[in-house]
């Protein structure tokens, strides 16, 4: 009997030692990998769907047929405080709900990112003055892309940071046009904003591994954010106004959160 107990204990020990994972520190110097940012637009706890009626705080309702915004200057901060910035000429993207997959997710894939354990992500909403001041020739391919996507007024006025197009209904107005085209107006208004989002778990970028950061974007915050706006009160047509555009820009700073991270 004693021998049997001993054998059982020994078997346990062997299994324990045999299965210990190797936690030796890995050397990531010079290694690169890809990371995907997965933007998922919603309204509160509901997934965003085109032509669906959503209710705002003051009982105004809206439904959208276009939903696009610009993201740029993506940076990642790792667990040692190092910051990786994606190359500037490629670091500008259009998040377009119309490009989403069946699940309503829009992918932006960053390639050749330094291998590291990233703990937060920073990006800009819109285009900063530095990029704008590079002039039309300094924009590379993005200028024509933005033009095709309707994200540019004219070179002098600059980029539209957002394109929320649809209709709204209030107590007195029924299905009136709604167009939120916020942007910086040349250099006279700067509506570029940056947000830094903590990652709930580390995003581990490694060669040949898939890493995804699932970003939830709450569209309701654009209208009911830091400031609640009324469509019927001058906010149904937001274009170049120095009064309304900064309110939308500030509201958009609070619409993003990282819901979760996938590591392969």
């Amino acid at each position, binding site marked *: 009997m004693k021998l*049997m107990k001993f*054998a059982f204990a020994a078997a346990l020990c062997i299994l324990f030692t045999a299965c210990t994972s190797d936690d030796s520190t890995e050397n990531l110097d010079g290694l690169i990998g890809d990371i995907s940012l997965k933007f*998922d637009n919603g309204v509160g*706890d509901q997934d965003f769907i085109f032509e669906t009626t959503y209710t705002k705080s003051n009982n105004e309702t809206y439904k959208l047929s276009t939903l696009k915004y610009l993201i740029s200057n993506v940076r990642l901060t790792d667990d040692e405080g190092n910051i990786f910035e994606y190359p500037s000429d490629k670091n500008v993207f259009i998040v377009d709900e119309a490009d989403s997959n*069946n699940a*309503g997710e829009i992918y932006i894939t960053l390639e050749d990112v330094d291998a590291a354990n990233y703990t937060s992500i920073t990006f800009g909403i819109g285009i900063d003055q530095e990029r704008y001041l590079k002039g039309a020739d300094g924009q590379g391919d993005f200028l024509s892309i933005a033009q095709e996507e309707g994200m540019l007024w004219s070179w002098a006025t600059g980029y539209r940071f957002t394109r929320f197009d649809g209709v709204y209904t209030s107590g007195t107005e029924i299905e009136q046009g709604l167009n939120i085209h916020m942007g910086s107006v040349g250099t006279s208004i700067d509506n570029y904003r940056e947000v830094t989002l903590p990652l709930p*778990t580390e995003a581990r970028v490694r060669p040949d591994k898939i890493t995804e950061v699932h970003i939830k974007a709450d569209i309701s915050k654009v209208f009911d954010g830091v400031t609640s706006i009324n469509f019927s009160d001058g906010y149904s047509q937001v274009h170049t106004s120095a009064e309304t555009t900064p309110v939308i820009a500030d509201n958009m700073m609070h619409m993003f959160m990282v819901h979760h991270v996938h*590591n392969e």
Partner: protein
Amino acid sequence: MNALQNIKKIGLTLLIVSIFFRTHYGYAHNEYPPRFYFCDLCGCTTSGGSFGFGDLTASNFIGIRYTYQKYHSRNGIFANSPKSIETINTVQLWARVPLSKKLSVSTIIPVNYLQRTFEGSDENIQGLGDINIMGWYSIPLFKNTVKDSISVRDIPLSATHTLSFGLGLKLPTGSFEETLTDRVNPGFQVGTGSVDYIAALSYNFGKNNFGFNASTTYYLKTSNKNDYRFGNQFSYAVNGFYNLLRTNTFLLRPFIGISGDFFDSIEQYNQKQPDTNGSILHGAIGTEIGFDKFITGFTYSNPIQQDLFGGNVDAKSRFSAYLNFNF
């Protein structure tokens, strides 16, 4: 020393069986490459735990058990995200073999068939699941007045109490695929890919035609080769039964009970994954029917309370049936 030889034999047999299954089952016959991520909290843990390691009276037996489980999982991060339906069918070879009066070993060798239906298309995975082996040490707290009761009919007339301690392992004989998809239900796997340690405590009581059993099981889980570690799990089950009909060759033993599980968060690369812990409580009703030395059991369970994966996974009713030969 007979006991030691028995253990060796059983171990060797299991090894051979597992090698066979790994080679010949796995995903070889699958239409699709396996793309199942995360793990299924639920699917991996069909062997033991709240499902039980044996029949109501903890007899020695060899038999076959079938279990059916169904889950609805939200695929996405929103309240109106579409849901998938996962069904898990498991066929298990299970046994509890005495080594001496107080010592016994039990095993469960499952083969899992999983199906996932999402937006009109089906995906299937199947294969050998995770084998579990337990060693049990039983203490009869009251002397059994009927010696060498060997058949299901011979329930002693006086009260009996038995306390059993079990220690064991859940082996990574089922494949674990850590391919990145956006699955909410990480338990949708034939195995966890990890060696898990199991400690169990069970208590059996019988008096006249009444009986009662209670068991608790703790699973200490380790990381698999993908640095993925399912959360430690605490399971419990309590059943009360009554011998409604008992003749020399026939037994009808209905029972009612509750069972449940608590799961810790899943960890990957030593980081807790959000919304991966949870708990579930089942109510169960069923019966055992004995014919001579054969006993069959049927159990229907329904969740009473649950909170799995932050509410993203919804467990439906489950069913199990077994046919055992007692010895």
